[in-house]
């Protein structure tokens, strides 16, 4: 394990007892290294083992086997390190609906007392965009606002690692952009961020590296630009011909366009040139795997 590894996982497995089917393998041998200061995204379909993996890293779940270290400490055997370790991490769970009768300010201020290096609660409330809801009861917040409060409670303790489980579900596009800026600013302060998400544009906008996980196994770890050989993938040149729309897959789109220009003697009708998106690569990988769950 290198000093730069904030999270280090080797051979992680977890199987749940299932009344109907005997046993369900949720995590089937995962290796993972998240470097200090990076934003790392875990992508995968529902039931792929994302949440189980993350909850093991967060110290919520036991594992069956494997080696796990988060900030140099094994979250499966915290013992007396429990409080000091939790003081260094921040967790944003998938959904919470609690303490609905407290106000935003009361809740954030209260949580700030749990940590030794708490940020200024009012600044955190402003940073997540809830400044105008400071004195609103939590029960009056919209889904997206509640989510932002969840994030505020996750970052109030100035965590060294922040776990974000599908953080922007229920956000409108503007709120998502603002949220991405917030996450980037946390990274620039040195926070390591582990993110699970369904949104591939989110992974692309934020993550330094992504892991695709399916059926409890990691299929690939890469940068968003290179995932699934995306950087080497053929470009798609499409245009309108007399017989209808024509698509050419090519490694040299510029040359293809030059040829088309001479063929059409100038303007090419409805020309588009595209590269596969992260989503295209992701779907190809998941489908290639087949859905065994």
């Amino acid at each position, binding site marked *: 394990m290198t000093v730069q590894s904030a999270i280090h996982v080797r051979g992680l497995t977890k199987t749940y007892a299932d009344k109907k089917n005997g046993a369900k393998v949720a995590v089937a041998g995962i290796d993972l290294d998240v470097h200090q200061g990076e934003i790392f995204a875990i992508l995968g379909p529902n039931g792929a083992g994302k949440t189980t993996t993350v909850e093991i890293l*967060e*110290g*919520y779940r036991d594992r069956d086997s494997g080696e796990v270290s988060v900030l140099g400490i094994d979250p499966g055997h915290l013992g007396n390190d*429990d*409080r*000091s370790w*939790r*003081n260094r*991490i921040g*967790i944003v*769970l998938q*959904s*919470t*609906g*609690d*303490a609905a*009768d*407290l106000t935003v300010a*009361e809740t954030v201020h*209260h*949580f700030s*007392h*749990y*940590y*030794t290096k708490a940020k200024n609660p009012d600044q955190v409330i402003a940073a997540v965009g809830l400044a105008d809801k400071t004195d609103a*009861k939590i029960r009056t917040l919209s889904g997206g606002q509640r989510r932002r409060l969840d994030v505020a*409670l996750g970052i109030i*303790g100035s965590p060294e690692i922040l776990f974000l489980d599908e953080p922007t579900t229920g956000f409108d596009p503007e709120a998502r952009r603002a949220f991405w800026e917030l996450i980037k600013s946390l990274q620039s302060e040195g926070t390591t961020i582990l993110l699970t998400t369904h949104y591939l544009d989110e992974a692309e906008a934020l993550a330094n590296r992504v892991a695709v996980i399916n059926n409890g196994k990691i299929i690939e770890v890469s940068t968003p630009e290179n995932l699934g050989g995306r950087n080497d993938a053929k470009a798609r040149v499409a245009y309108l011909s007399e017989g209808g729309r024509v698509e050419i897959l090519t490694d040299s789109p510029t040359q293809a366009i030059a040829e088309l220009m001479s063929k059409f003697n100038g303007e090419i009708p409805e020309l588009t040139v595209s590269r596969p998106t992260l989503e295209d690569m992701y779907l190809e990988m998941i489908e290639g795997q087949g859905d065994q769950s």
Partner: protein
Amino acid sequence: MKPSILRIGLLRGGIEIKQFLRQRESVVFTMLFPIMLLFIFGSVFKDSIAPGVTFSQYFVAGMIASGLVNTGFQQLAITIPMERDFGTLKRLRGTPMSPVSYFIGKIILVTVSMLVQVGLLLVFGALLFGLNVPTSAERWLRFAWLVILGSICSTILGIAFSSVPKSGRGASAVVSPIVIVLQFFSGVFFIFSSLPKWMQDFASIFPLKWLTQGMRSVFLPDSFAGKEVAHSWESGRTLLVLSVWIVLGTIFAIRSFKWSDR
């Protein structure tokens, strides 16, 4: 500076009370319902059941014992499963807050609501239904240990029972009938000695019967001890039963408490 477990526990107590007061249903259900019952039963059944003892006096003593069960057992066994359902507990467990601080907060909530409830029942009982407030130090002392042990027992059993309801929404449906049946069986709504033997035997397993009997030993004249099933207040046995439940409840609570439902 490391935030101390006690200080965070006190802060949690403040948060718990704030939330409690803002939930109108819980204030009405936990605080006013027993007072309402006191008015209904106390106004309907005014007859004497023994020389110098009216049914309303008997009933008020039972309601004070029930107050300990309402504010501890019933309140916690209903609200903790809801907090588990909402993810409140899971989130708290993910912070450096010690679980001990969480329970200190709950104990503060129970203590405050218990003092308010028992105080209200004492005042209304004394003013309107002829409850004799004790004058001897010995009786006050007995009252004090009954309230303290009864609250501890009720709180611990509430925490222990909180892992029984499958969902937060269903918790009230599981817990409330248990409390009501125990109240009927334990000499709150009826005179205990007039109940069928099997009902008495069943109730004797549980703390409420001993608490009601204990409260009668505080608020009714000593001559009434002869009307009890054992012809005695059985203070020693009450102490024993409550202690056993506290020990068993603590073991079960520690083993079964869950911070999340999955």
